[in-house]
């Protein structure tokens, strides 16, 4: 096998054992790696009855075939399983430094099942795997734990760590790499916590990556790296980080304000945008392994109420989630809230959105001080968010913390009083900081059909609507009008295939938008030794998309669940999208026709599945 190693670690934590296993080569060809291969592993070995936090629940971490290749954007991996936040299939992607180190140790991924008797870690040193107790680490934050790991195992050791939120089984706890990079979404930090697993540490002795055609791959790698580095987008990301576009986003109505109740706030735009972060607080730029874009920020706020020492800074999603979403234009507060979430191990998107929902509920008296232990939840009160609310969520240490630790959908179910009207979710996952009403109507469609729920990284629809990427070789060479439903179903069908390829090969969306479809194919062929055509690659993407839907079908998801909250569809009352309606039903109906999805069950018919090499899966769902 080339690119991939064909080997994974299978850890049975109840037994305290971890062994090497191999996967059939056909799994890799059919499902690529990353999110796609994780879906196939769960399909074959996972339990559909086990609750997400039960010991028998599987947690699957997978690299793509390019992890270890020294190319910008390749150092991501995927983690997947049944989400404790949504209850159905999900996955999450993380950059940083773990993926290449795991590949260099000789493994494509790790499957975790069972539960350790007492808190422990998995230590991978080349092909030696140990499961070790670390009772004294339990209760520590991510920053302290990561520092301890560096001290004990050396600076070259790479780690995935949970904070107190994961230990306390908060539904949206995340998993952190080097305090800076997160498997943020869908709550896999809680799954790790439920297994009593504090950290996974990997250390390799050499950089081993074995492609099928190293000369051709090296030449292509240089070509692509130059293209990625020289692009205007990459240069802007390098200069001002992922929030570089925030100001522009406010003008088009893409940036959500006060729980999506407003679409325009001019003064906030300048206060929170990436160039302001650069001017005020940036000390260094940082990057995932081998990435020349370096969009990550290192910040320091030496004084003031939100002072923080030099360390990881916020990305766009965190700035918007703890800024505009909460009615705040205090950039320092977003930096501090983001740092705290990283330390506690909380997903900033769901945390910010759930607090925004709670602030609206408090404003409308659906949530009162009786349920918040006296805490007042007022818009822009960042002292309370940072000092009181976030810690109480991570420790589930109060009525308010317990309520908000559930995520907004379950919290709305718990308090009722019409508060579900103010949700901003799809399939139980809080929407990212891109408002479909201004950012592009196609986002409403792709949020609804995404297997994990409202997600802007499941596919490149956001970029396609912005005109930031085109794929003429597969028919996407036309300009989309973001404020219309026209051609959104057609482009979404291409987007879900490309998204599945991205998330299965674990490529960064910021880097890979510079890669043309034929270059993708050559990458796969040179790295993994395939003889793919464009059609083969796109079929693999569609196969992964279908398999993810089949998994959700087995978790009880149907066509009627492919929805987004009313709040995301109601016409905006201000800003550029004011009064514009999204024709969601029309887009969804058309997408279902094009993707050959059953209008009730939400999955393709038997023949469609058989035609795309999902015959055994078809036999299960179409008995």
């Amino acid at each position: 096998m080339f690119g991939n190693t064909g080997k994974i670690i299978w850890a049975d934590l109840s037994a305290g054992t971890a062994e090497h296993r191999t996967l059939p080569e056909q799994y890799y060809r059919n499902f690529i790696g990353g999110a796609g291969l994780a879906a196939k592993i769960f399909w074959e070995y996972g339990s559909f009855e086990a609750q997400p936090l039960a010991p028998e629940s599987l947690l699957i971490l997978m690299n793509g075939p390019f992890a270890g290749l020294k190319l910008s954007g390749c150092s991501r991996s995927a983690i997947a399983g049944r989400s404790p936040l949504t209850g159905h299939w999900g996955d999450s992607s993380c950059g940083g430094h773990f993926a290449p180190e795991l590949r260099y140790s000789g493994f494509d991924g790790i499957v975790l099942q069972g539960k350790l008797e007492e808190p422990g870690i998995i230590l991978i040193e080349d092909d030696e795997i140990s499961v070790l107790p670390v009772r004294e680490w339990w209760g520590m934050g991510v920053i302290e734990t990561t520092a301890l790991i560096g001290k004990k195992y050396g600076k070259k050791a790479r780690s995935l760590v949970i904070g107190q939120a994961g230990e306390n089984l908060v539904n949206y706890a995340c998993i952190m790499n080097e305090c800076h990079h997160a498997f943020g979404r869908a709550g896999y930090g809680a799954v790790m916590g439920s297994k009593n697993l504090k950290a996974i540490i990997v250390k390799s002795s050499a950089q081993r990556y074995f492609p099928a055609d190293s000369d051709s791959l090296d030449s292509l790698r240089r070509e692509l790296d130059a293209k990625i580095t020289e692009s205007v987008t990459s240069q802007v990301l390098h200069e001002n980080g992922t929030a570089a576009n925030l100001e522009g986003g406010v003008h088009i109505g893409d940036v959500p304000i006060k729980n999506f109740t407003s679409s325009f706030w001019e003064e906030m735009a300048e206060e929170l945008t990436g160039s302001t972060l650069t001017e005020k607080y940036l000390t260094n730029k940082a990057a995932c392994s081998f990435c020349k874009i370096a969009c990550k920020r290192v910040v320091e706020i030496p004084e003031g109420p939100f002072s923080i020492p030099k360390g990881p800074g916020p990305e766009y999603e965190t700035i918007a989630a703890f800024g505009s979403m909460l009615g705040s234009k205090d950039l320092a507060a977003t930096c501090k809230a983001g740092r705290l979430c990283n330390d506690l191990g909380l997903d900033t998107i769901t945390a910010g959105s759930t607090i925004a929902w709670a602030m609206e509920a408090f404003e409308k008296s659906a949530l009162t001080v009786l349920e918040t232990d006296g805490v007042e939840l007022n818009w822009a009160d960042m002292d309370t968010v940072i000092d009181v609310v976030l810690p109480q969520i991570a420790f589930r240490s109060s009525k308010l913390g317990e309520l908000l630790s559930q995520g907004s959908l379950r919290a709305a179910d718990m308090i009722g009083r019409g508060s579900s009207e103010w949700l901003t979710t799809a399939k139980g996952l809080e929407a990212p900081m891109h408002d479909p009403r201004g950012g592009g109507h196609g986002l409403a469609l792709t949020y609804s059909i995404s297997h994990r729920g409202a997600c802007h990284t499941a596919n490149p629809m956001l970029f396609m609507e912005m005109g930031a990427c085109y794929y003429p070789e597969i028919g996407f060479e036309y300009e989309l009008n973001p404020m219309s439903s026209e051609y959104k179903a057609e482009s979404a069908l291409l987007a879900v295939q490309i998204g599945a390829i991205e998330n299965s090969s674990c490529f960064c969306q910021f880097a890979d938008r510079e890669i043309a479809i034929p270059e993708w194919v050559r990458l796969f062929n040179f790295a993994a030794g395939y003889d793919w055509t464009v059609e083969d690659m796109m079929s693999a993407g569609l196969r992964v998309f279908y398999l993810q839907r089949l998994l959700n079908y087995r978790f009880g998801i149907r066509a009627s669940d492919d929805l987004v909250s009313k709040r995301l569809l109601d016409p905006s009352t201000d800003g550029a999208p004011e009064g514009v309606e999204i024709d969601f039903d029309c887009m969804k109906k058309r997408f279902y026709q094009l993707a050959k999805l059953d209008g009730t069950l939400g999955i393709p018919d038997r023949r469609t599945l058989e035609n795309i090499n999902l015959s055994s899966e078809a036999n299960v769902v179409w008995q």
Partner: protein
Amino acid sequence: MEVSDDGCLSDVIQSINIPVEIRPVFFVNHKRCAFDKKLSDGDEIKIVSLIMGG
């Protein structure tokens, strides 16, 4: 900036030669507009770059 009586947004765009790489979006009086939007006296034009979208 002055435009002719039947001038539209595309005339302004052409005259200031904005590079397409920065993916500009145009607003007239705070509303996002297509290139053929006719302009009137006193219209406020704002140009926003959608260069990335993170």
